[in-house]
């Protein structure tokens, strides 16, 4: 039976794209969430160097 390396590549490639894509999304979300936290003024009494 032939080896169908194309299919093997397609499966692993697709997995890499999807998992990699989700990882990039996670990184982006974390960056945005961190930025949002720093933009937001802290609770009263917490000094922030300007």
């Amino acid at each position, binding site marked *: *039976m*032939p*080896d*169908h*390396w194309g*299919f*093997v590549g*397609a*499966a*692993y490639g*697709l*997995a890499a794209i*999807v*998992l990699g894509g*989700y*990882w990039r999304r*996670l*990184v982006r*979300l*974390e960056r*945005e*969430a*961190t930025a*949002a*936290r720093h933009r*937001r003024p802290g609770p009263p009494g917490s000094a922030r160097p300007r």
Partner: protein
Amino acid sequence: MWFSTADRRLTRVLGWLAALGLVAGLAMGFCIAPREVTQGNVQRIMYLHVPTAWVAYLAFMIVLVASVVYLFTRSVAADRLAQASAEAGVVFTGVTIAAGSIWGKPTWGIWWTWDARLTSVAVLFVMYLGYLLLREMIDDRERAARYCAVLGIVAALDVPLVHLSVFWWRTLHQPPSVMTPGPVSLPSAMLAALLVNVLAFTLLYTYFVAKRLSSLRREHEAIA
């Protein structure tokens, strides 16, 4: 504010471990594991398909546990875990289905078949997509947590019922599928490759969840 530098470092370590594991998994899957007798090298997709399926089920069990914990303790951290795990679970389930389909085309000749395993996983996929959709559609954070916890429990308890019903439905129609990668019948090199990949993908899942938890935590702190 307990997400300290230590936790960030831990997440980074997890990421590197996962990357290492995936490389090792690829090496095992393509170099150490032998060429399968009947199917040929296309069978190597198993080292992707089975681990992602395993991780998908793990993710949804975590969703169940976190949902139950949330209902009993109303701990926001439990809710965040449920959300992070459900997201990762949906991603891994999608990969499982795609890989299974791609494996099926040269092996069975068709892109999709109502094979017991594939059908069950497809139902699982739609159930947890619904979970994410429900979260999207509820604006109130607290209500979303409560409702998703209930849905998470219903879905998880339904999984064995889905499996059983689909299996009976399938096997009473046609003979069981050719693809039965049970560990028992595998030669040891294949089993080793499979286990390494299972570990690698589990590490990847854990890394994904840790990263998602951190961004969810910061989102909450920003809103709170």
